């Protein structure tokens, strides 16, 4: 496996999705939009090398990755700082306090380093999970509906924060929110049981303004495609 190759999933999962070819754009955010149960998360899990519970026929070429899901997946018995340094802990490496402090500052959780996840709000938990994902410093980042449990305001704030912090990283972001795809996707793909189809992304670098006319137009068009 060449490490500089673009991550790619090509194949089919009988009963879930027809043959398709998903190739991520290096250094860009690819938003994968689709209804629930269409197999978006299965594609993401294939790229992550995680068990999917379905039969997949095809090939996967991927890179070392970091994962962030709808459930922040923080370890309840570890503090915010320890959660952000979790990768090193699990691999038996020494923690890097300076790096952890940088990540905490990047997501604006200064002063909350020693809190347990139960003592954080939902938005703070997702920011801690984002910091942990960044701390892994992997060439591929997989986001599985990371903000869908948040209210509209937090979804905007943390989504924008993630897009800025992940600039230059190859990202697959699975979402069922057309507005999120229109704001955050350098590339937008729509997944239906028939397969994958590209959709032109609005112009301009991400994160885009939620109320920019092109973003609103793309959001409407994407919603239309999901309803079709």
């Amino acid at each position, binding site marked *: 496996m060449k490490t500089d190759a673009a991550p790619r999933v090509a194949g089919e999962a009988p009963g879930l999705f027809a043959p398709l070819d998903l190739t991520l754009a290096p250094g860009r955010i690819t938003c994968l939009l689709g209804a629930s149960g269409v197999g978006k998360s299965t594609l993401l899990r294939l790229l*992550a090398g*995680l068990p999917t519970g379905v039969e997949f026929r095809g090939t996967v070429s991927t890179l070392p990755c970091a*994962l962030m899901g709808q459930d922040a997946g923080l370890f*309840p018995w570890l503090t915010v700082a320890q959660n952000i340094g979790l990768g090193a*802990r*699990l*691999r*038996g490496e020494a923690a890097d306090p300076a790096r952890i402090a940088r990540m905490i500052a990047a997501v604006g959780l200064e002063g909350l380093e020693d809190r347990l996840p*139960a003592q954080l709000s939902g938005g703070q938990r997702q920011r801690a999970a984002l910091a942990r994902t960044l701390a892994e410093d992997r060439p591929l980042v*997989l986001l599985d509906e990371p903000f869908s449990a948040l209210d509209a305001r937090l979804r905007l704030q943390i989504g924008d924060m993630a897009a800025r912090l992940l600039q230059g990283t190859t990202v697959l972001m699975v979402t069922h929110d057309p507005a999120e795809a229109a704001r955050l996707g350098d590339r937008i793909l729509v997944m239906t049981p028939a397969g994958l189809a590209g959709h032109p992304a609005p112009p301009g670098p991400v994160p885009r303004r939620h109320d920019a006319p092109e973003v609103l137009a793309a959001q409407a068009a994407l919603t239309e495609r999901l309803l079709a």
Partner: protein
Amino acid sequence: MRALLAIAAALMLWEGFVRLTGLPPYLLPGPLAVGRALWVHRAELAPAAMLTAWETLLGLGLGAALGIVTAAAMATVPRLGRALSPALVVSQAIPVFALAPILTLWLGFGMAPKVAMVVLIVFVPVAQALYDGLMAPPAAQMDVARTMGAGRWAELRHLRFPAALPRLASGLRLGAIYAPVGAVIGEWVGGARGLGALMIQANGRMKTDLMFAALIVVVALSLSIYGTVDRALARMLRKRGF
């Protein structure tokens, strides 16, 4: 407060029932008579309670340790887990009390068979609860750990085990409730000392008030052991963010 009122009401009903019916004290002594027996026989009850408490705590500690080690081994070696898991279920169907005579036969009339009885009673719920917890780690955390490249051992130590602590605590609470029962039954079957033996002797000599007094001491012992274990576990879980 409400519990105390309920107990007081029950005791008054009991005393009233005994007085109204005129039941002889060897059939049913009233609470006042039982209270008197509690005081009169304090020199017998106190050392008996100490012994039973000691057997219970020793058995609880050993049984919990054995259960934790077994569950950890079962989770670490999947083949062992698959082999032992049904055995744990089957062992729960054995009425452990029926084993008391044979334990006495094997281990003599000293403390050993009573402690063994408690170990048997505590071991299964602890092992079962912890093993279930170790085998059902939270899915989101599991995914994160895997993508971070955690090995089997790191996964067990840093995720499966800490995540299973609430289940382990449930197993330990169950064990703490049943532990004194094990010690008392062990003393019933073979032994001259301890609260169980005292109850059997009192019953045989128609000293029903002493029997009830010993029973009250057993209940007090059980509740204080359970209360201590429960509080310690609750504090441990709270400190770990559960």
